[in-house]
């Protein structure tokens, strides 16, 4: 085809599309939309791409998987299982792994992608949290994101339970015990869910429908809403010269982002495939089919369920109480339902909690550097510490073997650490943030240390400090620093008490957040610093403007 005919064909197609769909208007409005660039913005995309990979490989798996608990006798190629009584679900998973070329690879990619899906969502959430991207107008998208993470955990749990192997069956048994522990209705719920007693024969087909139909449909809807909102509200951007709350600085969607994102999808897909080719996970042929009687030592759920299992392991038995002829299993309810609930509710509400402390109702499109929000960063680090300790507790048996320590000692230590360590981490993180902010002030006021030592005629030694250029400086001074509401509502300069300032708890909350703070350098402070130190700079920072 010559160039002119190609152009003619393309033109014809474009015309066809425009006259039927109004495509030119969409292209004009959207193709050159600007997206800001930063490596951390790709974390959410890793999650999105993992989801697409899950859909693709999942469809392949459904062609061979038989979602049934019906009993059958295995007579395939895998000798250790021949003539064993297994379920159809298990037998078909073994078949698709060993008899279907590429089947094992597809299973591995599906499982690896699921692990990555939840991990990427979690890390993406950390990014959004620590940079304050959840602030107005993005509160709703934060909530949708939280729902997606929770659903991802549930979807993953149901997915790895489908092969009906010994390990996942043990997980289902634990899930059934959690349901049984629910007061009053627990045993009824369990009988309805399992179609009778555990394990029964209804469970696999039921969770199959939820795993391949119900939850993916909800995922598609929520991801659609999530992305639409990113598009409508435009992406946030990191602060820097030329980047304001009123603009978006970056590169156009077409062609730059299309090529970059498209390429990145293939990279994520490629890396997951490489992992699947090299590292076998969930070798269900080693576990055997589910049977409630045997179990293997070191039974572990997939990583994203680990924190819950860890909470359960840390609990003591005293929680189970017997009253008025009934049993209330707080030893199960607290770690399996209450603790995850208490972790989730503040997560969902966080945008509003912080808004109550700042009293700030403006739109925020410029991200925070984590150090400039010390209390938030400290709280985030505290929450992550708590989560990681629970995750470690979920592997206390593995840890005991690896470190050759007593499992009882590890558990006792972790029981103490989950209460003690998170507040310490909060405090340390906050101190580090405040310290970094002071260092920023130092750099702005006294410039960069050049490492050049100069000796004056009088014998005095000093290091030459080079003033920051205005672009570097802007990054360190552009942010705003909140004051506690209480200070604002005190008497003003003329001794008149200001009205408003919110209720007592709001003031307390605000104090908790902003009592300790470091304000950015003002031009006046910089001028004063130059004035007082003359040509060469002293090392000590200026206390002026530094509260506390």
């Amino acid at each position, binding site marked *: 085809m010559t160039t002119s005919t190609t152009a003619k064909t393309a033109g014809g197609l474009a015309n066809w599309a425009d006259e039927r769909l109004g495509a030119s208007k969409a292209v004009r409005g959207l193709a050159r939309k600007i997206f800001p660039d930063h490596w951390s913005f790709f974390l959410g995309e890793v999650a999105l791409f993992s989801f697409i990979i899950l859909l693709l490989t999942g469809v392949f798996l459904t062609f061979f998987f038989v979602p049934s608990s019906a009993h059958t006798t295995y007579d395939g190629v895998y000798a250790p299982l021949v003539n064993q009584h297994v379920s159809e679900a298990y037998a078909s998973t073994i078949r698709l792994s060993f008899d279907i070329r590429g089947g094992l690879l597809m299973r591995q990619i599906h499982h690896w992608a699921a692990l990555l899906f939840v991990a990427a969502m979690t890390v993406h959430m950390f990014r959004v949290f620590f940079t304050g991207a959840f602030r107005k107008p993005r509160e709703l998208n934060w909530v949708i994101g939280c729902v997606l993470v929770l659903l991802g955990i549930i979807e993953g749990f149901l997915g790895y339970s489908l092969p009906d192997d010994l390990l996942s069956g043990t997980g289902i048994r634990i899930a059934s015990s959690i349901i049984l522990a629910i007061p009053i209705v627990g045993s009824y719920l369990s009988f309805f869910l399992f179609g009778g007693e555990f394990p029964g024969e209804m469970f696999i087909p039921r969770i199959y429908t939820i795993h391949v139909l119900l939850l993916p449909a909800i995922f598609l809807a929520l991801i659609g809403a999530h992305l639409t909102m990113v598009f409508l509200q435009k992406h946030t951007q990191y602060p820097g010269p*030329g980047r304001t709350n009123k603009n978006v600085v970056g590169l156009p969607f077409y062609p730059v982002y299309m090529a970059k994102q498209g390429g990145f999808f*293939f990279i994520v897909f490629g890396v997951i495939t490489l992992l699947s080719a090299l590292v076998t996970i969930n070798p269900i042929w080693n576990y055997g089919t589910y049977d409630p009687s045997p179990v293997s030592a070191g*039974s572990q759920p997939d990583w994203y369920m680990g924190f819950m299992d860890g909470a359960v392991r840390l609990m003591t038995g005293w929680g189970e109480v017997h009253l008025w002829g009934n049993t209330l*299993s707080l030893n199960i309810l607290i770690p399996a339902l209450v603790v995850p609930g208490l972790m989730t509710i503040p997560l969902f509400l966080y945008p509003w909690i912080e808004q109550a402390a700042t009293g700030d109702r403006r739109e925020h499109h410029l991200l925070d550097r984590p150090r400039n929000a010390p209390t938030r960063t400290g709280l985030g680090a505290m929450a992550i510490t708590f989560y990681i300790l629970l995750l470690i507790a979920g592997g206390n048996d593995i840890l005991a073997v690896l470190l050759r320590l007593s499992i009882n000692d590890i558990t006792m230590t972790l029981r103490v650490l989950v209460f003690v360590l998170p507040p310490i981490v909060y405090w340390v993180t906050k101190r580090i943030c405040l310290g970094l902010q002071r260092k920023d002030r130092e750099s702005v006021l006294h410039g960069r240390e050049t490492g050049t030592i100069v000796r004056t005629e009088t014998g005095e030694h000093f290091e030459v400090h080079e003033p920051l250029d205005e672009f570097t400086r802007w990054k360190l001074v552009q942010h705003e620093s909140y004051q506690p509401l209480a200070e604002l509502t005190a008497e003003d300069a003329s001794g008149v008490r200001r009205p408003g300032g919110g209720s007592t708890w709001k003031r307390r909350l605000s104090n908790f957040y902003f009592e300790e703070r470091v304000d950015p350098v003002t031009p*006046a402070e910089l001028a004063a610093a130059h004035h007082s130190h003359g040509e060469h700079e002293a090392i000590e920072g200026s206390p002026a403007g530094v509260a506390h």
Partner: protein
Amino acid sequence: MSESSNLPEVSGGSSSGTVAVPDRFEDPGLPQHRNRVTDVDAQAARRAERQVAALFGLSAVGTLLALVAYFALPYDTSLGYIDYLGRVQLSNLLVGLGLFIALFGIGAGAVHWVKTLMPDDEQIQERHALRGSDEDRDIAVAIFKESAEETGVGRRPLIRNSLIGAMALAPLPAVVLLRDLGPLPGSKLSETIWKRGTALVRDPEGGKIKASDLVEGSVVHVLPEGIEETEHPLNEKAKAPVLLIRLAPGLLDETSRAGAYQGIVAYSKICTHMGCPVALYEQQTHHLLCPCHQSTFDLTQHCKVIFGPARRPLPQLPITVDDEGYLVAQDRFHEAVGPSFWERG
């Protein structure tokens, strides 16, 4: 709360005497774009072009490798078992590596293309307030009011109230329809198939057990005889498994002795915490450990919980021997085995 929030007060900028200093620094604006090598050096650009093409070419090679590996390594049942599994693994490895190269090549090529040859000078677009104009908002409110007026909901409360009532009731069938998801629990959670005289057989190989088969310190996994012939063997297996252990007679406590036979005791293997099999027996300490959440039970104290999240001891199955000397249940379990539930008592 005011729109301005609680940001530091503007102080008026009077700090430095005669010269007016602004309160805040000014944004210096976007720094000038710095050219990449490929922007200024045509040769470098051609080199980048070749690199991108090479990555795409590599991808094509990967695709070929995946296809060749798929067809060249058929799964052949005439191979021995070990060779067959080796074939599966090799196929998984080579098809996977081929796919990796195919996918990664495209991805790396595209990203390299973007980074070296597509424009990278940043552009600025204005944001627009998400909030509608005052006019938009007034019109929206007016539309809602007008539509509400047209429906007459405010004027005809009978329609409104009856609709609310009907809507509140309508979801009920959806809930009720779920009733047949399963039968009611009844007393099923409290029952096992053990009864007086049920023989203890080995799990999984089967076969009755004589007291003399057990030496001191030995442990046997046990199921009730006939469990495979029940209607739902797995459901029964979720409750009935038992651990049979012979202890030195002196180690048995008073409570356990009544249900024991010559120092042989049988305890439910189903953890009283979350129903995992308490399958790890530590011979030296006479402890039973659940591998799921590490609840530890002491055999010498009637299987009392000595560590971990479980509360109740493992229920004991009282045992004796029949006329032929085989171990059998003396009676059923005296309480529900396994995890707790509300009605358990």
